[in-house]
């Protein structure tokens, strides 16, 4: 069964037990929100870094599916197919 991979930036990897890639088994397309639920289920602190307690993606957290940022797609409803890779990248922002 092909997996869906979620690639974490180095700054978040300590919150996932040092892993740079989290994987979720998938038999068909899954939504990004469900994918995040799945891969962060054992890492609640990591989950809170990506989304606030309402479930909203944090403003300066960007999630890319095949090179497209999900806000330009269907947000957390964006579907990801088995075998695809999802990138978590922080915005270049601040001063």
């Amino acid at each position: 069964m092909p997996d869906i991979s979620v690639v974490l930036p180095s700054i978040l990897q300590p919150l996932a037990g040092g892993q740079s890639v989290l994987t979720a088994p998938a038999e068909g397309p899954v939504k990004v929100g469900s994918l995040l639920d799945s891969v962060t289920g054992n890492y609640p602190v990591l989950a809170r870094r990506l989304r606030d307690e309402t479930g909203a993606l944090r403003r300066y957290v960007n999630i890319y599916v095949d090179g497209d940022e999900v806000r330009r797609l269907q947000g957390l409803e964006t579907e990801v197919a088995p075998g695809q890779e999802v990138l978590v990248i922080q915005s270049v922002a601040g001063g």
Partner: protein
Amino acid sequence: MGCMATGENFVLAIGTKKGLWLATSQDRQQWSFSGPHFLMSEIPSIGIDTRDGRTRIMVGVRSEHWGSTVAHSDDLGATWTEPEQGAITFPADTGAAVERIWQIYPDAESRPGVVWAGAEPISVWKSTDGGEHFELNRGLWDHPHRSEWGAGYGGAAAHSIVVNRAGDNVHIAMSTGGVYRSLDGGTSWQPRNKGISVRFMPDPYPEFGQCVHKIAADAVVEGRLYAQNHHGVYRTDDNGENWNSIAEGLPADFGFVMLTHPRREGTAWVVPLKADGERIPPEGHLAVHRTDDAGATWKRLDSGLPGREYNSVLRDAASVDSAEPAGVYFGTRGGTVYASADEGESFTEVASHLPDVLCVRAAVISGVALQVPERAAAGGA
């Protein structure tokens, strides 16, 4: 490393826009620094809990990227713990998310597990397990005035919490909304702003809506509190029923800081800023002002402070310790921190060139063994 020291020691915690610095001292003159902790996260709130024999440092941590959380350390910052499920998170039914933790307030010695917190959006929280998990105060969250509370420049937050010795009487201050009081330990809340002006509104004396910047309780007199308002410095002697101006004698009535003495009646400190539209120390001359008679007169204190300083001092960027004489500490938005071991009579610069100082807290940590570096230099941060 040098000797191990025991006895009366001091810890100074400096929360900035880009991280936390911790310092320890035996004499409040020479400080040994560690940091930055939480580099690139702002630290808008710090609580140092020395009750029940512990030394727990709790910090509100906020990253533009990764949100707000609360962490604590029981070993002076050597290690930090963040509760897995989060110490402060809004219940799902509220539909809200924590933006920033503005205040962490350890309750009285007689209630050693209780810690209060104030947050943005405007909310008050209470922990009964030493600050590891907080419950949302529903009485304030569901308050009928909520839709009329506004945001100050820094956000809409409950930023001051004062609890009396018995624990039944709680005052909070919010920007903007003003002072609210609970007489039942926080179950229900009523505005208590009579006499506090809102010069920027058409009605200068509304029931609520004031932008009270900070409140603090008198060390001795029950029911006496002091307030630094958005223009105006006030005192109440009747538990918030009436507020009266004590601004006469100050060079300006604007500012953010209000500190009170840990033991002595009638002693409070403010750091005046020129005006709403000119948020700098008056004429660029930074000074702390202290009253020892509950605001009847003020004494200007600037020994050891620079001749020119154009940075302001934010509402929680100042603290007192509980030693005798009390120490007074504050930091500027220019990243300089000053400390006084004699109640403000003379200051020394203990750190400089830090990021904007958002929060300063200091405490006596009696009996804690400290590693004292051989070269413990002032300004080591």
